[in-house]
């Protein structure tokens, strides 16, 4: 049986894709405002992906690295609609490189930057989330740390909204269990 597409959803996605495609073309042409727009739209997702994998003190720097890489390789991106998944992959690879490079160095705890004391409880919860399966971990960090809505997570990552919803609910259930919270 032929699959029936929701025309409203299809139209919305198409508009977004058209806009993203234009932004990416502009970035490839060296437009600094377009690059700022891309950063504004995707930096929270990249931050969440990295925060789930590397010490917090280095996350901001790695976010910068990821966007520098994306900027210099953006002409390699064949399908603009795949940008979210593409840059998330760059972020995951960068985190892997980072962990490989720092394996032989002394591991420091997530330090408290001056003037921004964050309670031990926050880092304890972060550690629990880092221990969750990857799909739940990334989605929960985008929702709970970055404040993104489910639809926004779907738009940025390229995941189906239904998958994001499942990841959020299952991830939250696991998190509640591990934190001993009542459901």
């Amino acid at each position, binding site marked *: 049986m032929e699959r029936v597409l929701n025309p409203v959803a299809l139209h919305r996605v198409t508009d977004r894709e058209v806009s993203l495609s234009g932004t990416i073309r502009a970035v490839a042409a060296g437009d600094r405002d377009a690059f700022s727009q891309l950063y504004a739209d995707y930096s*929270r997702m990249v*931050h969440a992906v990295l925060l789930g994998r590397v010490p*917090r003190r280095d996350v901001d720097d790695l976010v910068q690295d990821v*966007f520098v890489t994306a*900027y210099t390789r953006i002409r390699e991106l064949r399908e603009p609609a795949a940008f979210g998944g593409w840059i998330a992959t760059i972020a995951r690879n960068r985190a892997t490189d980072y962990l490989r490079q720092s394996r032989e160095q002394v591991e420091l705890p997530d330090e408290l930057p001056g003037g921004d004391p964050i309670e031990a409880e926050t880092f304890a919860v972060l550690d629990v989330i880092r221990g969750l399966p990857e799909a739940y971990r990334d989605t929960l960090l985008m929702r709970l*740390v970055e404040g993104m809505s489910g639809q926004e997570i779907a738009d940025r990552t390229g995941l189906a909204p239904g998958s994001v919803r499942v990841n959020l609910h299952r991830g939250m259930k696991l998190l509640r269990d591990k934190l001993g919270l009542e459901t």
Partner: protein
Amino acid sequence: MKDDYLWDPSSAPDPEVERLERMLGRLRSNAPAPDVDQVRSAVLLGPRSATLKGSRYVSLRFLVPTLAAAASIVAMIGLTWQTTRGTRSWEVSRMTGQPRIGSAPLAGTGRLGVGQTLVTDAASRARLDVSTIGQATVDTDSRVRLVDTREGHHKLALERGTLHAFITAPPGQFVVDTPSATATDLGCVYTLHVDEDGTGVLSVTAGWVAFEFNGRESFVPAGASARTDPRIGPGTPRYDDAALELQAALDDFDYGTDAAAKARDLQFLLSSATPRDAMTLWHLIARVSPADRAAVIDALGARVPMPTSITREAVMRLDKAALDQWWDALGLRDASWWRKWKGPYPAVVK
């Protein structure tokens, strides 16, 4: 339904999720986007542009179309030179150990771009060329981020550690943010230290530095220091050779919480200050309660007479012009220097 809140934060909140959001939201970042000009420059300069990894740019060069690669070498050199000149970054040199720019180790020299962080560990130090206006040395266990650099305005954020600055530019061009105060250079040499908890101390060797937070200002001349603390901002400056008892009383007065003890500290300060401590007394005028202000004015007047051009009433109501004239009478430097250029920074030059 509570589960909808996970999907749509604008729906009825789930208290537990809301609490986690509040807690974990503190880990959110507001770091600026990398500077495109710096990235372009790194691409053109290839792997020797040390802040960016070589392999990426080698591969990018292979992607450049052959015709473009065959374009005039002269034009390429010209473009590289122009781009490098316009780059919003500073040269950074390793002094000891293995400093990092972001997560990349710094082998010899490299460039610190806007938004990037220079990190030193317990064994490493680095030197920054502050555009063309001076140098800054970053000591061990420090973390400093380049916030902005453009004609007439250069800004760092010292998140922790120690920075020694030597600046030859006109006043106000070099600014360092700390978690609890902003140090604005007035043409000088100084050392700024910030601890993990955001407290810090500024010590000035030559010239003077304005230390400011939320409208609370300290003017620190050569030979003097000022502490800073996230709770109240910059403390009252004092000369480094002031009596230790006076310095201790000043710290207690600035950061203590016991009102009776603070009153005793103030009495001690007013009675034991020497004429050289007039600079400290001048700062206290605006920091004491109106009820104590008259006593501070008397104490300062006994060391450096109030200029005849101002009135006691004007000083009592903290009239800026009157306070500035009394500052000028201290013989340190004309306060108009600070007032004149203190204002909005010039617009970004694109």
